[in-house]
């Protein structure tokens, strides 16, 4: 037996003896379009009239939108109700060719992977197969999608025995049986704490779910009702879309559908390339930091370099933080790409169609086993904590290209606020049902300042236009959460600038009418801002989680209404409730059970500012002051505007003088660039800072201290100690110190005796 023969025998043996079909890197790391097949080329040859293709595309789009409406209406998940979903058509090769016009854009680039997995592994597998009427589902983010709380469902569409496409939908369902309720467990220390782990799986045939599998899935989560309704809504929406496509085939022929799906993708990619080609070539670098893992404070570096050449853009994240093997903040590379695609689809070219081809001309570079390209062993339920800042790193870099770009589809902006500031909840509701999910008001992220005007207050999340923060009366009818303050704009919570970012709002929540109820929250940015201003605009502030324990606010309402306060600052500064405990924390709270009337308080952040604060129109400053959006301190010390405290009337001369004085101070504070660099630069990160990622050298990665490093091409994952163990050790040290201090006193006492 020759060498080659021996090799092939071994390869065959290995192929036949796979332990299990885990996530396939070949699928997961490739976001390019599958090249057109002969069948597609043949269809394009037979159906090539652009106007007719446009008509068919319009019909397919209508089908996607109809299906989206169905899922939104029929689904029970809060995510479905606020539009955290997408429905679409995948090509015969698994690429997402068309998607609903509503919903979450991240999915545009992320839904191809499970479909491609089905095609690669199950289609020819005699125990699974792929035939008309089959229903596939999936939720494990390591096989695609954003995180395990998202469940996707796809059905194949055949015509005369030939696979034409897939239809389906993906929804943020929420509860998934993880170690914490609500589907996004920040306490997860391994992928096995993250609840349901559906690799792409055949859950039904003949357009019916298998009862045993449905039961298994319902049995695996805290909300069996939600699981049932979610599955049914997605299935019937996919079937409706299939039936519409069948009609199109009857009217225009099967080639029309195949050709339109393919041409939609290739035209989109070409258009993206055309637009990119109008940007100036060059590099832009940005650094951002995630300030925690949701379990502890630390600095997690996001290093980003945008390199635009011709009609391609390379986004290089090499040198970013290593992965955390027992923290849920890691990102699967595909999820990162999905989020980056969002920047281009929502914030740069919102007029482009929604499909994965938009991202095809982009190249993403990461270090293996970095937190932005984590291994399958690392949990990822809170991947937003690293891919949201990564998104922002790109967002604040892009304007530097856009300023000289030949094609602009919308306004140039600073950094949008990027964190999901809300409560995840779990427990028994007022009707005795076990529930767990997330509140919709995470959607009120502050809009970024624009090149010619202010940002809008709490307007939309970075991942979806037209998202809803809901209505408090409807929320408290379903779950035992009462928002004392549901969404009140917070004074000075703002990215200042010539044009300011949109304010964020504060919320003060409590619990009533439940025997067991817990809150969680999952945001970073309590120490280091998660988004930035540009061209001199300020970053927004940092926001803590505040709690008041040992109070029942309903008792206060009854007996001491004079103690009531309606802003976080008043409650935390005045501390009005006698005997209560007031604390502040980072916004990564694991499930914490609440007593009736205790207060949990959060602040949705602001968008970044644009331009120099000294160039802001004094009248605009005055109006914000009158609207109670900024304090007199900000008027005086940030904007250097002089106005009358009562009427808000601006003294223009005095303002001019104050601004002139401030400009002089700036000149005095300034120093030559070389001098600044010499003072600013250090060889290593600060000694006592838990720092993760590269410092000066992109290829050397710090793992939490200046003494602990690894090369970027051989990253050693980080294991964090349990914060409770850390706290116990601290207390033990304190106890030891107390004991040591007590010993001499004891000795002395003994001696006295």
């Amino acid at each position, binding site marked *: 037996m020759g060498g080659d023969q021996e090799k092939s025998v071994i390869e065959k043996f290995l192929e036949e003896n796979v332990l299990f079909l885990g996530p396939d890197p070949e699928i997961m790391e490739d976001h390019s379009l599958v090249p057109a097949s002969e069948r597609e080329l043949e269809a394009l040859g037979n159906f090539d009239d652009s106007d007719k293709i446009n008509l068919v595309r319009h019909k397919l789009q*209508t089908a996607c939108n109809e299906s989206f409406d169905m899922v939104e209406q029929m689904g029970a998940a809060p995510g479905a109700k606020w539009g955290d979903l997408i429905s679409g058509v995948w090509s015969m090769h698994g690429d997402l060719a068309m998607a609903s016009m509503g919903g979450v854009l991240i999915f545009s680039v992320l839904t191809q992977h499970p479909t491609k997995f089905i095609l690669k592994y199950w289609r020819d597998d005699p125990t699974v197969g792929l035939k008309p009427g089959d229903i596939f589902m999936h939720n494990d983010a390591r096989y695609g999608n954003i995180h395990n709380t998202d469940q996707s469902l796809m059905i194949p569409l055949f015509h005369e025995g030939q696979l034409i496409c897939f239809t389906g939908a993906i929804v943020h369902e929420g509860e998934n049986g993880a170690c914490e309720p609500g589907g996004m467990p920040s306490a997860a220390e391994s992928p096995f704490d993250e609840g349901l782990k559906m690799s792409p799986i055949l859950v039904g045939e003949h357009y019916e779910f298998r009862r045993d599998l449905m039961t298994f899935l319902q049995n695996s989560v805290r909300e069996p009702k939600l699981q049932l309704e979610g599955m049914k809504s997605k299935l019937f929406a996919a079937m409706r879309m299939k039936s519409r496509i069948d009609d199109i085939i009857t009217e225009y022929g099967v080639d029309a559908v195949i050709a339109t799906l393919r041409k939609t993708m290739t*035209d989109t990619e070409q258009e993206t390339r055309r637009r990119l080609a109008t940007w100036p070539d060059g590099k832009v670098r940005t650094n951002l930091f995630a300030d925690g893992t949701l379990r502890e404070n630390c600095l997690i570096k996001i290093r980003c370099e945008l390199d635009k050449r011709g009609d391609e853009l390379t986004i290089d994240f090499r040198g970013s933080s290593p992965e955390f093997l027992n923290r849920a903040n890691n990102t699967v590379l595909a999820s990162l790409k999905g989020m980056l695609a969002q920047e281009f689809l929502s914030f740069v070219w919102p007029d482009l169609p929604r499909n994965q081809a938009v991202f095809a001309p982009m190249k993403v570079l990461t270090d293996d086993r970095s937190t932005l390209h984590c291994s399958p062993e690392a949990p990822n339920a809170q991947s937003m904590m690293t891919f949201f800042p990564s998104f922002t790193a790109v967002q604040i870099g892009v304007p530097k290209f856009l300023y000289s770009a030949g094609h602009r589809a919308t306004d140039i902006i600073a950094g949008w606020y990027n964190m999901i500031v809300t409560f995840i909840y779990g427990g028994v509701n007022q009707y005795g049902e076990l529930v767990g999910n997330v509140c919709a008001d995470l959607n009120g992220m502050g809009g970024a300042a624009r090149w010619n005007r202010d940002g809008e207050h709490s307007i939309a999340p970075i991942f979806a236009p037209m998202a809803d923060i809901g209505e408090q009366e409807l929320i408290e009818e379903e779950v035992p959460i009462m928002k004392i303050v549901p969404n009140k*704009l917070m004074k000075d919570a703002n990215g200042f600038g010539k044009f300011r970012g949109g304010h964020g709002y504060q919320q003060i929540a409590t619990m009533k009418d439940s025997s067991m109820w817990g809150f969680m929250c999952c945001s970073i940015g309590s120490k280091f801002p998660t988004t930035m201003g540009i061209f001199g605009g300020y970053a927004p502030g940092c926001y803590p989680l505040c709690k008041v324990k040992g109070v029942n606010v309903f008792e206060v309402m009854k007996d001491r209404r004079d103690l009531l306060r309606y802003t976080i600052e008043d409650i935390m500064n005045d501390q009005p409730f006698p005997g209560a405990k007031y604390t502040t924390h980072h916004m990564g709270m694991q499930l914490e059970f609440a007593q009736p009337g205790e207060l949990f308080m959060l602040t949705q952040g602001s968008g970044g500012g644009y331009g120099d604060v000294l160039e802001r129109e004094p009248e605009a400053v005055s109006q914000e002051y009158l609207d109670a959006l900024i304090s007199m301190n900000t008027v005086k010390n940030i904007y250097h505007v002089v106005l009358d405290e009562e009427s808000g009337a601006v003294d223009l001369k005095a303002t001019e003088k104050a601004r002139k004085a401030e400009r002089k101070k700036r000149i005095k504070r300034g120093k030559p660039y070389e001098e600044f660099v010499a003072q600013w630069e250090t060889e290593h990160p600060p000694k006592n800072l838990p720092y993760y990622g590269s410092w000066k050298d992109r290829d050397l990665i710090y793992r939490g201290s200046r003494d602990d490093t690894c090369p970027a091409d051989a990253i050693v994952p980080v294991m964090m100690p349990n914060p409770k163990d850390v706290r116990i050790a601290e207390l033990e040290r304190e106890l030891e110190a107390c004991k040591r201090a007590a010993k001499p006193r004891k000795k002395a006492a003994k001696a006295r005796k």
Partner: protein
Amino acid sequence: MRRVSVDIGGTFTDCFLVYDGQYIEAKALTTHHNLASGFMEALENACAELNLSIGQVLSTVDAVRYATTLGTNALIERNGPRIGLVTTAGFESTVPLMRARGYGDGLAHAEQMDLPGADRPKPLIPMTMIVGIKERIDYKGTVNLSVEEEDVRAQVRKLVDEGCQGFVVALTNAVVNPAHEKEVERIILNEYPTYVLGATPIVLSHRVAGRKAEYSRTMSAILDAYLHDQMYHGMSSLEVALRRNGYARPMLLVHNTSGMAQLNSTHSLQTIHSGPVAGLEATNYLAEQFAEPNVIATDMGGTSFDIGLVTADGVKFYDFNPVIDRWLVSTPMTYLHTLGAGGGSIARFDGLWNAVEVGPESAGSDPGPACYGRGGKLATTTDANLVLGYLDPDNYAGGTIKINRRRAERAIEETVAKPAGLTLIEAAKAIKRKVDANMASAIFKEVAVKGYDPQHFTILSYGGGAPIHACGYAGEIGVAKILIPPFSSVFAALGAGNMNQLHIHEKSLYLMLYDATFRHVLEDYTVFNQTVEELEERGREDLVRQGVDPKDVQTRVEMDMRYGNQLAQVSVMSPSPRLSSPHDVIALLDKFSNNYAQRFGEGSQAPEAGVRINVLRVVSYVEHERLTLERSTASNDDQPKARTERPCYFPQLDDPVPTPVYDHSDVAEGMHLAGPALIETPRTTYLVEPGWNLTMGRMGSAVMVRDA
């Protein structure tokens, strides 16, 4: 029957006069500065046809009914009073933030998608005019924090100091317990009694909308207060003008709920979009009279295309959260879908798809299509229709508007044909095909999403632009029959003349018909029955206040139901007005299941997740005498004489086709015409495309049927 019905639209005031069996249509330009002028002129034109004076007619008619766009215009112009909002402390930012998504409400999809470019509309209430009072009622209606009089007085004074000209009081969960809103009203009235000059109107949110959801309910109340003065004065001036001319009875205003009421029983919010709703109501009636079970109403104007549905099963389609201008509200409104497609829709070449696109941008009426010669340089649907030969440059809109073919050609050449590499005619055909396809898609989605098959429907086509495009969009979705209604140019006014006096009252509740967690079917019917009774009483009071005999009041009980915690709220008409046995509950569950399956597919129902009633609704009405619209059965084999012939181009044919052009007065009842053909009326043109046949009916109506 003697009845005057008027639809005061944005451009024209349409009048439909019924006088002892005679049906008269007339029009006048709307006079926005004083609605009464246009109203009286339209009426005068109608009376002139009867050789009677206005006084003679008005002193003898049974009723004057009208629909108006006054409210819509007031919103657009933002010239309402300075309103102050009193809300629950902690909720002061609810209105300014508009549920976040509010930036896009009322905008086209492309604008909604553009987050960097997103701007909220200029607020109706500035932040300085919003105050919070310390009070709280929970979801069950329990008072957690009571109202304190001094607190309310202090906050109200703040608003007055800021120049408040009207109060809106919107407190949390007021629909389940309105005590606090009423208490605030009492305190304001005590502070500023109605007899003093400084008195201001007070609108309580629970009286305007009965549904939970604080933002949309508060917006409903704000819009109501904002429009109140202007609507009241506008309507009153009309009433005065009518009285001066001998009319002694109360006027009836058309509501957007497909009913009507006197001024003293009308919220200003209920008058918004009442004209288009009257058109749909006319469709409803026509469907009944013409024995057309399923009808899609399509009304194409200069900037928009309205779609409404009438179905054989009698289901009433409401929009429970309509967007008015840019504001989401929560008062039930008869459902109409509006698409940005009309004669003024702008065509362009889309380089991305290498294809021609049309709309949603519109040239409107100013500058209007390029062929109008008013400065418009972009190609529009009307320009394409002119180039394709469907419109007569010398006889457009009865010769009232001059249009220039050369200008249309140049606009299409420059903005569409050259960039697309097409000839002029190819480009014009592509525009026609695309605008038809856009309308067809919108119709298809509207019908299909509600669970119906469009091919089982007849399309009703009215409005200035629809009869030119009807064959195009009907063909595109496989509809084989088109109906052009009688009096199509004043069709909404006709609808206004044919409505019942009607009021809708609804209330949010949380009533589990089937609790899946505890496997329990509702046994205690008290809440259901008491709520229905309460809503029936409110409806009865409304009608009795208008002089209706309580014996004549009829009611219909409807409810919104859902499985588990879904968003979908399927509207169900209750098989019985009260629940009294398990059979009633099961019958209701079955009805819901059937409605749901029709909409989403058989098997999609999920009763295992539990079934809930979220809203109970009672429609109280009194029936009025109706007009008679008879379908023509006449057949006349004579061929009308064409006035002229001109070459027309059709998207499906390569070469131009010589197309006869008829004047509508030459086509008698029962005459048949095979397409291609054009029939010109003073206000529109009927295009019978190749493959379609037209039969003329009575009163200007026509039926077009596609070749089998």
